[in-house]
């Protein structure tokens, strides 16, 4: 018997909506999960993905991808490649493994929710493939990280990190619970596949794969590339959903895009920014984080949202100014609070590295140079102790990252300013104006307690550095430290050093 042509049967497996007779439609697609809002129910019948996939095609393609990724892994396992990788790059991968592996699993739950409550059969079909994709990503990321556990205990955080109360993870959980777990599926399709995946991760994965190859980590590049091809397919759930929402409720569409973009941008500043501008060895850097964001995220994102009839988010100027500031402040915070990390953060401020930073970010020396100089002088005075934390950074109530964003005054000085909000008998603090605004509009949504809130509420005992590290699940074998103090301080040995911590001068 001859097989039917694809176009002759595709409709039967794709267009599977029917009219219910035993139950009401809103019992099957309740508003709190399906979220049609002001969009008429019948409008969703126009939902159409850009390119269509059948299950046999999906299975065949995925099988090939898996076989290829694992074949490369098996071949490289017998080589000594890992031993020759720079610790800066290794730490970028440790951060990635711990920060991403089980976020991929949260994405399985998000895709499953869209596969169940999506308002069009084709959308649910695409989300079914999407959840299989995300399951594969959770597995492949965990498995690839697991290979190195025997060589370095920090890789154990590939699987462990997401289960801990480490502040980095609390920040990611707050972001992704808001993006992947809590929303109705309409908002979710716009936050996750459209804004986060199309706007950020697709492009970051391309850049990360390229950085991996540049750093000699073929295995990681292979894993990332394999994942990225799935993202490119299932992220297309966002576009058709946004198109329909913009037509019927453009105000809601704009708000959902705006807040997802902001949350994604804050997380990227913390994780991708330091990896690109500080951890990657100077000779392997192809572009700065700002250049990467401008070329790969900003230009494409603005063009895309304008194509859908939306505007740049209201916080655009604050975001653009932050490209010169956010990740540099976060780099200093990650480095200073390094015992709380499951990787070894490079300081990356030798004279050559600073010259590169100053070229890419003309205000870098003015805003950060003086503070790194004091840290350098302490290290060179054998007073590393003065460069270790004795209290917590204040964590923003929205993004849960340290409040460390300097802004310039009219007199030219740079200062970190407070963005407070008194609400419900309590004072909240935010790192930026937009984080405060998003909290205010979304205050009844998911807002985890920050680590500072937990500390002050007595949830962390004993109330000292040891108690905090224990609460975060940190153990001595995985605790972060600078991989090579001398690498970035030796250029400055012997210079006069006034005004450093007392311990160093005694």
């Amino acid at each position: 018997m001859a097989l039917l042509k694809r176009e002759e049967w595709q409709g039967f497996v794709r267009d599977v909506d029917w009219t219910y007779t035993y139950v009401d439609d809103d019992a099957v697609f309740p508003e709190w999960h399906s979220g049609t809002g002001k969009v008429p129910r019948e409008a969703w019948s126009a939902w159409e993905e850009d390119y269509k996939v059948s299950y046999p095609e999906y299975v065949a393609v995925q099988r090939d991808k898996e076989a290829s990724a694992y074949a490369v892994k098996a071949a490289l396992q017998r080589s000594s490649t890992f031993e020759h990788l720079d610790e800066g790059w290794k730490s970028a991968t440790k951060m990635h493994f711990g920060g991403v592996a089980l976020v991929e699993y949260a994405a399985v739950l998000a895709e499953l929710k869209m596969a169940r409550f999506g308002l069009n059969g084709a959308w649910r079909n695409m989300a079914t493939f999407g959840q299989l994709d995300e399951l594969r990503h959770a597995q492949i990321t965990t498995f690839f990280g697991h290979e190195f556990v025997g060589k370095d205990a920090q890789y154990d955080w590939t699987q462990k990190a997401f289960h801990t109360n480490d502040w980095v993870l609390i920040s990611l959980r707050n972001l992704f619970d808001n993006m992947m777990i809590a929303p109705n599926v309409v908002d979710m399709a716009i936050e996750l596949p459209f804004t986060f995946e199309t706007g950020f991760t697709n492009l970051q994965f391309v850049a990360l794969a390229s950085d991996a190859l540049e750093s000699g980590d073929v295995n990681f590049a292979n894993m990332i590339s394999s994942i990225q091809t799935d993202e490119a397919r299932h992220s297309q759930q966002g576009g058709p959903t946004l198109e329909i929402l913009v037509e019927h409720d453009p105000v809601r569409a704009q708000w959902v895009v705006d807040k997802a973009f902001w949350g994604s941008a804050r997380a990227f500043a913390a994780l991708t920014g330091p990896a690109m501008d500080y951890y990657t060895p100077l000779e392997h850097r192809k572009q700065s984080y700002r250049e990467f964001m401008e070329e790969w995220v900003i230009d494409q994102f603005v063009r895309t949202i304008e194509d859908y009839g939306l505007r740049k988010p209201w916080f655009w100027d604050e975001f653009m100014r932050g490209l010169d500031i956010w990740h540099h402040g976060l780099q200093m915070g990650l480095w200073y609070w390094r015992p709380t990390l499951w990787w070894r953060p490079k300081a990356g401020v030798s004279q050559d590295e600073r010259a590169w930073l100053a070229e890419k970010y003309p205000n870098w020396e003015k805003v950060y140079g003086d503070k790194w100089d004091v840290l350098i002088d302490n290290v060179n005075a054998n007073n590393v102790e003065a460069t270790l934390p004795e209290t917590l950074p204040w964590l923003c109530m929205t993004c849960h990252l340290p409040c460390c964003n300097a802004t310039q005054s009219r007199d030219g000085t740079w200062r970190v300013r407070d963005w407070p909000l008194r609400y419900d008998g309590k004072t909240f603090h935010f790192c930026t104006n937009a984080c405060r605004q998003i909290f205010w509009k979304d205050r009844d949504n998911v807002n985890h307690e920050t680590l500072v809130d937990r500390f002050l509420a007595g949830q962390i005992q004993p109330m000292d550095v040891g108690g905090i590290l224990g609460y975060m699940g940190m153990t001595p074998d995985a605790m972060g430290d600078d991989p090579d103090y001398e690498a970035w301080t030796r250029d400055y040995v012997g210079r006069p050093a006034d005004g450093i911590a007392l311990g160093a001068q005694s």
Partner: protein
Amino acid sequence: MTQELGVEDQAPQLVPLNAIFATDFVQILVPVTTANTMREVAAAVAHHVEGRRVRALPYDKVVIHEGRRLPPDMTVAAAGIQPLDHVTVEYDIPEGS
């Protein structure tokens, strides 16, 4: 009843502050008490930053709360500083120096 006592006569209460020291890059958590003077608050904030990330300068320090420069002998209670309030600690650099 404690409500009838003046703020200076009450037992010291813990006042966790959101604080920033001069040109430092980040706000930090600094616990003080209602009985601490502004001189002590400035020292408590400076302890985490001065000479560690911000080069120490030979000047007195001043606590600024909601735009007010508070006198060094004033207590947290008298200043009306509440738990979770923000304070800035600056060097009191004489004009022209």
